[in-house]
């Protein structure tokens, strides 16, 4: 009886219980501005300075192969028309987790489902050990398989289409992209998101970003529908309320 009481005091004395650490359910959104440029940026008109989200390598730079860095720079110049996100393509991974729009996580015993508000993209992440699709089958959002490592939910993502970008600044990848994501609860309403990115066609070595996710804890929070409509040229465009 006394021991039970002590345990109770221990759990209520902390902001959240350890037993919740594998409970990722809820509506989350990335803090900060990593979506603009994973490498960070100096302040410019309309935008404050941003730190790099890249934690490895330590210089905060994406370790591009020389020719690939030139492609990223060209993307950056042409981003007002070339960013596939502007035409409402599904955002890909890890970009989907970094956008200034919420996503909701649902958990079942054999799968975790993430629904992104952004163009209602979703991912069904099986956790029952079933294998990835074969090479050559490509998806905008990749093919995700999850497992628990301690209190981190680790998602292995492969089978990407090469068309998606990694951020607004034109950082990019090829179909050889391989992402390993780690979701780790850090407090009642915060979660650490890490993604290790590997793509031998574009990068000299793998690199890792780290971003905090914050829970939308307001009662009755819900995702709203973000659906694109065709413009006069037949290109899909975001409705004005979702333009940042």
């Amino acid at each position: 009886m006394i021991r039970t009481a002590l345990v109770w005091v221990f759990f209520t004395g902390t902001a959240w219980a350890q037993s919740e650490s594998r409970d990722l359910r809820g509506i989350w959104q990335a803090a900060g501005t990593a979506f603009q440029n994973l490498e960070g940026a100096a302040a410019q008109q309309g935008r404050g300075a941003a730190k790099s989200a890249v934690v490895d390598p330590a210089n905060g730079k994406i370790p591009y192969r020389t020719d690939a860095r030139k492609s990223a720079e060209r993307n950056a110049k042409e981003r007002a028309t070339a960013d596939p996100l502007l035409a409402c393509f599904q955002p890909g991974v890890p970009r989907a987790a970094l956008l200034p729009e919420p996503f909701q996580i649902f958990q079942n015993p054999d799968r975790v489902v993430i629904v992104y508000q952004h163009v209602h993209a979703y991912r069904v992440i099986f956790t029952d050990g079933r294998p990835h699709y074969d090479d050559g089958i490509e998806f905008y959002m990749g093919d995700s398989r999850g497992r628990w490592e301690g209190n981190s939910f680790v998602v292995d993502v492969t089978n990407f289409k090469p068309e998606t970008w990694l951020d607004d600044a034109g950082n990019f990848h090829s179909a050889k992209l391989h992402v390993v994501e780690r979701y780790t609860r850090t407090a009642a309403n915060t979660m650490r998101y890490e993604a290790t990115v590997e793509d031998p066609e574009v990068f000299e070595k793998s690199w890792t970003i780290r971003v905090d996710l914050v829970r939308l804890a307001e009662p009755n929070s819900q995702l709203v529908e973000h659906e694109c409509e065709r413009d006069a040229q037949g290109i899909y465009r975001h409705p004005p309320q979702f333009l940042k």
Partner: protein
Amino acid sequence: MAASLSAAFNVEEHAASYGTPAGPSVIIDPPDGKLPYLPGMRERALDNDKHRERDPVGQCHMHGVPRVMFPPFPLEILQDREYVVILAETEHGVRIIPTDGRPFLTNYSSWNGDSRGRWEGDTLVVEVRGLNGRGWLDQAGNFMGAGARVVERFRLTGKDSLDYQATVENPSVFSRPFTVRVPLRRRPADVELLEYGCIEGERDAVHMPSARGETK
């Protein structure tokens, strides 16, 4: 889950035609199996059928309710204590249905609406508001209009079978409410939804034949 295919082509009874297998009506009320269109509205549906490039799904939009429940592609249903979630493979459509008694959103307009669920015995009852009035009911051009409200009933009738009914009340288009009933079958556990892409520049919908086999 996957619905029987007939309703996706035409919710009313229809003969076979080019690209469309014959099928019975899925309308169980009114008893004649016909949509109770207001005067002039059936003509609009027939005109839609000759212009299937107008089909919102052909334009990559989500199906809307109730059409989202009987597409010719599979659905995935998840549930926990607070939500029922329906993922549609086609158009990567999503419905997140809170079952915790929260109020509806106000001033909301969307393709798949704002849904609230509750259990009545073994039946999940979902009320849907906030539909944008642009959704069609099937590929044959049967349509809904502004101000529609839908009440859906989901009931397991066997280990792998689900009875789906939806009552649509939409006085701007129909003279009375009507109810569709579609059976869904559970797919084997190893089936996975695939990613569906649609917005990458398709321009050929204008060549779709009429669901009634009519040519332009």
